[in-house]
């Protein structure tokens, strides 16, 4: 266990807020751009434009899991608390985006396929990933000792992240074996530019969310350290 790096207790610098506004502004811009400049889809009309939030949300959830994976690996290797806090923050944000992806998928699916859920590889994998992240967060909330919490969630996070491609593979195979047609979601080129812009916007947005959550986590952890030290009676001279 490395000694706790105490974060300074200064309020967030104006730079944080400025960056935040910038990111949000960019996000709004890209959304407006994509929605307004793309034509209505031949089959689905304007509903197709939900792709501009759905696909980036899905991308973000996997990116967040990537942060959980590497943060956890780094924590086990270097025992740096900050890596643990980063992984945890990323898991929270990732879980939220999982939820969003699911809802968007259902909104798109209902008018298109007539059903709210089709057990396709992407949606099912997202649902399972959501459950994995919920499990990870539940574990963290049920363990009080910070060192134990860090070690346990790191291992659970790593194995959980490894499981994601495995789940994807098995569900895809499941559908193939039962000869269910996969739902083609091809994207014609005029949509691509809007999509790429939105991918960038979502990535920045998520990075900002994770960063802010991470800062809050640092403060929480510092508070924990203080109360621990007080309990040990080690503060007095």
């Amino acid at each position, binding site marked *: *266990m*490395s*000694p706790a790096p105490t974060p300074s207790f200064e309020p967030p610098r104006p730079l944080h807020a400025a960056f935040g506004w910038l990111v949000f502004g960019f996000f709004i811009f890209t959304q407006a751009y994509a929605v307004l400049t793309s034509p209505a889809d031949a089959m689905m009309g304007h509903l197709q434009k939900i792709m501009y939030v759905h696909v980036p949300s899905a991308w973000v959830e996997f990116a967040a899991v990537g942060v959980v994976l590497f943060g956890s690996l780094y924590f086990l290797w270097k025992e740096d608390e900050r890596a643990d806090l980063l992984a945890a923050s990323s898991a929270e944000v990732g879980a939220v985006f999982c939820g969003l992806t699911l809802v968007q998928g259902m909104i798109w699916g209902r008018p298109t396929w007539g059903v709210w859920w089709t057990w396709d590889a992407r949606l099912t994998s997202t649902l399972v990933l959501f459950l994995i992240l919920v499990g990870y967060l539940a574990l963290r909330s049920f363990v009080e000792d910070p*060192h134990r919490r860090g070690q346990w969630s790191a291992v659970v996070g790593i194995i959980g992240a490894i499981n994601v491609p495995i789940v994807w593979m098995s569900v895809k195979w499941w559908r193939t074996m039962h000869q269910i047609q996969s739902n083609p979601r091809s994207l014609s080129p005029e949509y691509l530019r809007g999509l790429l812009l939105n991918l960038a916007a979502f990535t920045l947005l998520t990075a900002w969310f994770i960063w802010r959550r991470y800062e809050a986590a640092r403060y929480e952890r510092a508070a924990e350290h203080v109360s621990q*030290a007080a309990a*040990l*009676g*080690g503060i*007095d001279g």
Partner: protein
Amino acid sequence: MVGLLGHNGCGKSTFLRIVATLLKASAGDCFVYGANVKSDGDVVRHHVGFFSHVPGLYDDLSARENLAFAATMLGFPEADIDAALERVGLTHVAHERVRGFSAGMQRRLSLARLILQRPRLLLLDEPYNNLDVAGIALMNGFIRELNAAGGAAVVVLHDLVPAQGVLDRTVTIRDGRVHTPTAADLRHGGDSPQAITLPVGAAGIS
């Protein structure tokens, strides 16, 4: 033979557990016979025998079976279990399940396990609790025997009386620090951890 004294919560048990590799220190190093507690935990565990209020026994196994299990886990599958049982006076219940044992009997069975192990360094956390006079004599006899064979012991105590004649020196811990005029800082997570050497004869805990 070193005794560690101090009021409750001052950190003496914690220190013992760190040496036994049960806990990880937040700062500083600890070496047992040259092996680093943090990185060479397994080597340390070969040298060290830990005894605490936690019996660490399986209720549904008999006394003998518990010792047989311990012997295999310690790496001495051919150890003389019956001799150990006889020494602690539990031969008559060797085949009884531990579930029915009193606290004193469980303590003596734990001591039997320690006797099987014959560690170079004994770490004893309040070993005299729940022991009657005979039990205390057993414990002290064992400590002296190990000492004569070149071993060492660190005993955490709150009361010096049972350990009379066994300890070579005592160290008092207060608020996580060694409380002597030439104090070395034992504080966990402290900013300037210094080495505290407890001279325990041939052994060296530094």
